[in-house]
């Protein structure tokens, strides 16, 4: 490279390419193994859901009994897919935004394998009948220190990159990601040490478990999703974020409100009176941070409608943000202590809310980020527009059915429970359960192809092209992807 032709933008491109290259294997490892866990989790979810309306199916095998398959489904979704997708997005975004190459690839990959080992043994532990019986924390007690240590070994480098970054602007994405990186270990250590190591009052243990579930959603999965959305929306559209002050409001109100939420699940249980009611109030108030961030990113993306229609990243992100608005509305309407809380406290709507948060918001935005990040780290383009479209349609329609049917079915179930004049009977939830089974099957189908697509990309079997895979046919050319070209003809390489 001659210094005469080298410009700032060439150096920038070189730096970005260097960062992407350094993170290729960690990012692809977390995304691909995460996608595999996602498929496993949904497969278990289909089995669990089918058993909830046909209890005799596969009833001979203890490993596949409902009471074990369902926790395995949730834990695989949270720790297998959710956390690992979060790792991939955090390490890549923090490196890019701090402008630092990753220097600890070996440690991250080793820790990633340990994480996967921990999750696998935990799932086997649940299925073999050694679960702890604490929702979302069913992994046998050996698993959590393993997960915690590998968490630190994976993400400490992103924190260091932020500390040693060249001085400059701190992006909104970085607030959310840094905060999530700090909140998760705090929440995880608190819940696990209190419940596993320092036995206290059993009902207070149940309250902390409920707080833990809510904190995982609103202090890890939501901020990671918002960090990615605040990166993708301005980056892909090329427009600035709609409002900086709205972003600040959204972030600090999340930080101030979300830690109080969660214990409304214990309303009426013998814990100090204020805990469930503060929890209900905080959950309803979460409308503010979620809507502030949703409006802000949505306005940014809508400033460029044609990009929105063409870019898979933006399309998934928009769907996830719309999911966030639905989540915001349901966090108000499911938690009103005088009317709806008693009907949603012990019903299917809790599952609907969790799945809306985990799949309808977090996963959709993670898919959007995946479709953006993977071509950059592998330097190959996605193979098939059709697979991406199918993934989008099945995911979005699937999660609409799973979440909305569970939310609505839960309300119906709650009304039945409260009708105390009627004798108790297993509520006629069959149509809801059948719909949920069917929708999970659709989602499973599309995610198996998502996993295969990712694997091919990791093997660098993607298209060698400089044209991004867009969802609308380009004009005036025979190939739906435009002219085929060697990816190395553009970008940093041609500065050489």
């Amino acid at each position, binding site marked *: 490279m001659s210094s005469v032709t080298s410009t700032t933008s060439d150096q920038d491109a070189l730096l970005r390419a260097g960062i992407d290259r350094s993170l290729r294997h960690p990012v692809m490892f977390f995304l691909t193994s995460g996608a595999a866990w996602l498929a496993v989790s949904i497969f278990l979810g289909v089995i669990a859901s089918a058993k909830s309306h046909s209890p005799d199916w596969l009833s001979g095998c203890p490993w596949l009994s409902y009471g074990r398959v369902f926790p395995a489904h949730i834990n695989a979704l949270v720790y297998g897919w959710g956390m690992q997708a979060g790792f991939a997005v955090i390490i890549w975004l923090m490196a890019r935004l701090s402008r630092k190459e990753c220097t600890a690839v070996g440690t991250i990959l080793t820790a990633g394998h340990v994480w996967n080992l921990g999750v696998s043994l935990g799932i086997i532990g649940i299925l073999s009948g050694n679960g702890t019986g604490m929702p979302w924390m069913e992994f046998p007690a050996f698993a959590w220190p393993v997960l915690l240590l590998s968490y630190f070994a994976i993400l400490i480098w992103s924190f260091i990159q932020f500390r040693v970054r060249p001085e400059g602007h701190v992006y909104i994405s970085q607030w959310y990601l840094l905060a999530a990186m700090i909140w998760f270990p705090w929440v995880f250590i608190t819940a696990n040490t209190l419940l596993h190591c320092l036995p206290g009052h*059993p009902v207070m243990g149940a309250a902390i478990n409920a707080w833990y579930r809510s904190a995982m959603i609103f202090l890890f999965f939501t901020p990671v999703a918002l960090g990615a959305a605040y990166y993708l929306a301005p980056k892909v559209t090329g427009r600035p974020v709609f409002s900086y002050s709205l972003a600040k409001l959204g972030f600090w109100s999340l*930080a101030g409100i979300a830690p109080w939420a969660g214990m409304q699940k214990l309303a*009426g*249980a013998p814990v100090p009176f204020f805990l469930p009611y503060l929890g209900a109030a905080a959950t309803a108030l979460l409308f503010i941070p979620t809507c502030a961030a949703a409006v802000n990113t949505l306005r940014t993306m809508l400033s460029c409608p044609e990009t929105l229609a063409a870019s898979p990243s933006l399309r998934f992100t928009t769907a996830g943000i719309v999911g966030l608005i639905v989540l915001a509305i349901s966090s108000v309407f499911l938690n009103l202590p005088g009317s709806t809380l008693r009907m949603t406290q012990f019903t299917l709507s809790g599952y609907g809310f969790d799945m809306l948060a985990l799949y309808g918001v977090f996963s959709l935005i993670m898919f959007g980020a995946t479709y953006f990040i993977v071509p950059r780290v592998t330097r190959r383009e996605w193979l098939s527009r059709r697979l991406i479209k199918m993934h989008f349609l099945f995911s979005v329609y699937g999660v609409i059915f799973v979440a909305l049917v569970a939310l609505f079915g839960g309300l119906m179930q709650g009304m039945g429970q409260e009708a105390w004049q009627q004798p108790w009977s297993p509520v006629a939830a069959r149509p809801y359960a059948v719909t949920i089974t069917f929708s999970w099957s659709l989602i499973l189908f599309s995610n198996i192809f998502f996993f295969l697509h990712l694997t091919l990309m990791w093997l660098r079997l993607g298209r060698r092209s400089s044209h991004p895979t867009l969802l609308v046919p380009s004009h005036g050319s025979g190939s739906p992807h435009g002219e085929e070209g060697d990816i190395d003809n553009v970008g940093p390489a041609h500065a050489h």
Partner: protein
Amino acid sequence: MSLRTFILGLTASFGAAWLAMVVIPYLKMRDLAPLADPAAKSATPVFFPKRTGRIADGAMVYAENGCYLCHTQVVRPTYAGNDLYRPDWGGLKNDPDRGDTRRETNAFDFLGEKFAQIGVNRMGPDLSNLGRRVEADYAAGSDPSEWLYVHLYDPTANPKLWNSKCPPNRFMFEKREIKGSPSDDALPVDVGAGFELVPGSDARALVSYLLSLKKDHPVPAALDFAPKKKDGDS
């Protein structure tokens, strides 16, 4: 905003909730003052439900097999739900000895458990007083543990529960050839000539635990939110 300010802000906003919602209530509830037991006749009348031996093992079986996914163990006060109005959830409406024993769940009911299985979804009925209910109602006049064994083996075998969504737990039972005289524990389930069905150790532990679920023990006046009216009162 520097990193220092940022982390201070996060620590303050999270730490306040962390202390107020989690740490302080947890520490406070660890030292719950003992509750006097009005029904006890011993010298130290302290209310402490039995949670040892096979009952504790049964609580583990309950947790490991996900019973908490479909069954709750909390009878909410009337401000939070209608559980108390049901005739057999909070106790028994017409107990032959004690009359109406129904009451809401209190913190002492869970003493000695590892984790209170409050539950997440009521696909099945609340189990706070299952032991009481099975003895007085479901299995009235017969052996309550046998009723529970048969129920766990195949919930829909009972014509009254034909529509139950409770999964059968056949793996907790052992089908074996009858050698000599049949076992005293054999269940009244037809598993073929020359064979009998006996509960395994998990089933025995689970049934001990389920029969121990009687959370309508009398409470002292301080905790009795629905005291009996005197005869003269209207």
